[in-house]
């Protein structure tokens, strides 16, 4: 006969004795539970944003609703291109940023952005639970980043080229991308899991994917995910050599678009598992209902004309969410403003959604391309779209692109039900990511 024994799965995992005792049954049980966990939902319960259009989430949202953009002359970054290449710069000195972040001076700029936006997101989550409950949670930090401490390394390297023994070591000690994440993790007192993804412009979107998986696999209870990047001469000059920078404010999805404007900032969301949501009865902002990463495998920096990688990422994200194309209400496109990206992305959207193309816009017309931060920042914007039931316009479109039949959204939309939002991030190395965020009220 059967004997029903109710045991906590966490005790089983910890206790060797329990495992021996019930080995056969538990093996089945663990596999079952593992399977159930893969299907467990992941919820967003905190948002943090910092960009050229605002130092926090509320300021960013206001700017988006007021059609503001952060594009202008470069004044803080010391480059010969200050007058010629417009950027989306956060107009705060490193001293001010250090003070806002509550951190010491002489750290890479990306650290301050990351710390400020992370703290905002984490504070929102902390308001949902008690201090002691918070301390019992397994919390991780997974951040996307592409340039690390390059803004300081550039100074160091100039000295080094004159003399191998010169240059202040403090300007190069945080050069690695992983150093940015480690510094912020330690500032936030997070140690359970700390890692960095660097897949160019999809880095922070990929952090959201992997963070979701860490929750589903029960490696963590809570994970802070997103990304950060600061403007530096290295990337500004690098993109300039590729001839994909617009010397005017960028016009994503315009027929006569000339390129992108680089930006800087950070965007983070706090993810929790279903277990934590239910245990603490937390009201989520959104659900991470689908995600996928695919590789275009076409060229190191250019997208294939058909947007194969883009298509696969969107299609697989949709499959995971079990949504039909017509159920997506808004696509926050990668939409950099380069001839190549916008054509490939638009064609991929049209191929996948056909006549049912949702509203599409690019907020990079507001923030510029923030590289390792854009997936995190745009995830925040997507959550705000669900929360406030609005869709942002793509700014500065004079002549809409003729390659595809659907229209890019050019006005603020307030009168439509927004239940499911897709966010695209495509990067060098053919790295294509699509995320889907859903209205939590739809799930009840």
């Amino acid at each position, binding site marked *: 006969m059967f004997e029903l024994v109710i045991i906590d799965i966490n005790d089983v995992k*910890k206790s060797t004795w329990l495992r021996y005792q019930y080995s056969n049954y538990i093996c089945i049980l663990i596999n079952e539970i593992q399977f159930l966990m893969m299907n467990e939902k992941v919820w967003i319960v905190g948002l943090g944003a910092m960009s050229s259009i605002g130092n926090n989430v509320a300021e960013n949202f206001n700017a988006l609703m007021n059609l503001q953009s952060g594009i202008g002359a470069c004044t803080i970054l010391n480059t010969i291109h200050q007058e010629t290449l417009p950027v989306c710069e956060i107009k705060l000195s490193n001293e001010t940023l250090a003070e806002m972040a509550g951190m010491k001076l002489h750290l890479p700029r990306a650290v301050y952005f990351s710390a400020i936006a992370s703290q905002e997101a984490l504070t929102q989550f902390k308001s949902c639970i008690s201090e002691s409950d918070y301390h019992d949670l397994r919390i991780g930090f997974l951040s996307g980043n592409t340039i690390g401490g390059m803004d300081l390394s550039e100074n160091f390297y100039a000295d080094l*080229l004159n003399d191998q023994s010169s240059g202040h070591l403090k300007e190069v000690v945080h050069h690695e991308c992983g150093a940015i994440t480690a510094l912020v993790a330690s500032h936030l007192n997070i*140690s359970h899991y700390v890692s960095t*993804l660097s897949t160019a412009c999809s880095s922070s979107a990929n952090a959201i994917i992997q963070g979701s*998986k860490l929750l589903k696999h029960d490696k963590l209870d809570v994970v802070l995910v997103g990304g950060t990047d600061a403007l530096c001469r*290295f990337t500004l000059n*690098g993109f300039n050599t590729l001839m994909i920078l617009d010397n005017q404010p960028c016009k994503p999805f315009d027929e006569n678009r000339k390129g992108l404007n680089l930006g800087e900032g950070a965007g983070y969301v706090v993810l929790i598992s279903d277990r934590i949501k239910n245990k603490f009865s937390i009201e989520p902002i959104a659900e991470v209902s689908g995600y996928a990463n695919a590789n275009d495998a076409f060229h*190191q920096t250019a997208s294939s004309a058909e947007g194969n990688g883009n298509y696969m990422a969107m299609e697989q994200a949709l499959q995971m969410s079990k949504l039909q194309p017509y159920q997506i209400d808004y696509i926050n496109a990668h939409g950099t403003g380069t001839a190549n990206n916008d054509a490939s992305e638009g064609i991929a959207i049209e191929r996948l959604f056909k006549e049912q193309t949702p509203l599409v816009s690019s907020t990079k017309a507001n923030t510029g391309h923030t590289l390792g931060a854009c997936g995190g920042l745009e995830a925040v914007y997507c959550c705000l779209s669900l929360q406030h039931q609005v869709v942002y316009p793509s700014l500065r479109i004079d002549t809409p692109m003729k390659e595809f039949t659907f229209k890019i959204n050019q006005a603020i939309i307030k009168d439509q039900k927004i239940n499911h939002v897709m966010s695209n991030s495509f990067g060098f190395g053919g790295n294509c990511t699509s995320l889907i965020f859903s209205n939590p009220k739809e799930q009840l």
Partner: protein
Amino acid sequence: MMNIYINGIGSISAQQFDTRSAQLSFQNHPSNRLMAIEPDYKDLMPPMQLRRMSKVVKIGIASAKTALKDAGIEKPDIITTGTAYGCLADTEVFLQKMITQNETLLTPTAFIQSTHNTVSGQIALMLKCHGHNFTYVQKGHSFESSLQESIMWLNENNNLHILTGGIDEMTDHAFNIIARFGTYKNDSNHYTSPSEGTIAGEGAHLFVINTQRNEKTYAQLVDMKMCATNDIPMELESFLSSNSLKATDIDTCFVGINGDNRYDETILNNVKSLSNCQFVDFKKWCGEYPTSGSFALALACNQIYHKKIDSAFLFQPSNQDHIPQNVLIYNHYKNNYHSFILLKSL
């Protein structure tokens, strides 16, 4: 948990290392910087592409191709790798020109290839592999982050073939800069001298892992852990017990001591509960670098495959070869970024 097996390895390091070979003849180089021995790339990639590639991209791709061939797989479903430094040489080329030419007359090639995910991206490009493609860059946990992701993938879908590994290059400039932090020994000292500092290394190690055991399987990858705290004895105990093992069950430990007398004693102390165990100090062969755990995994797999630990590798010299069964890799980077990988002989 799925049973996960390591079925293919590509190894490029300071050693000539054919991972299927039963007789390894590793060289002990008296230097504070061990350089990767680059293979003949002719059979591995087209010469046109080869010319444009920096060392890290070349060793990464060559290692990937070797691993896939070793496992008898043409194209993996997932690519996930770790690199702490990324593409240092290309970064330096662009940086140097940008500074010396005062941000003028620059060309894009070095910039394009300086992106941290260049190696993973180029592997995908070469194989026309459209699958999921991640690159982790978390210092001493870069490789381990990618390995953990691989295990998660196989627990989600047991039909996948994963290509995972750790890749890092060392350049002259980077070596000199890191040396200024007191990381490396002085020229005259090498690994064996008990002094401050270690020896630099570099390498590319890629692995094909999946849930299918065959006659060419190296070892079972039982579990891994990136330590969250610096209480390593406690972390070790909980890691072993979550795998239903006691400290005395571990018979072989590949330990990440590196000749730096500031850390080695602490590191050995951290695993002193392994009382029934022979130790292998692998870093004397590959040097110290943040993704050196991938070299340890390759060496451990080779030894497990041949069911003996060569006496030349044992920390405490012995006349007898030792038979590995439950094998632990314990690595760290500067007494930080501690990690465990648990392997089982089949």
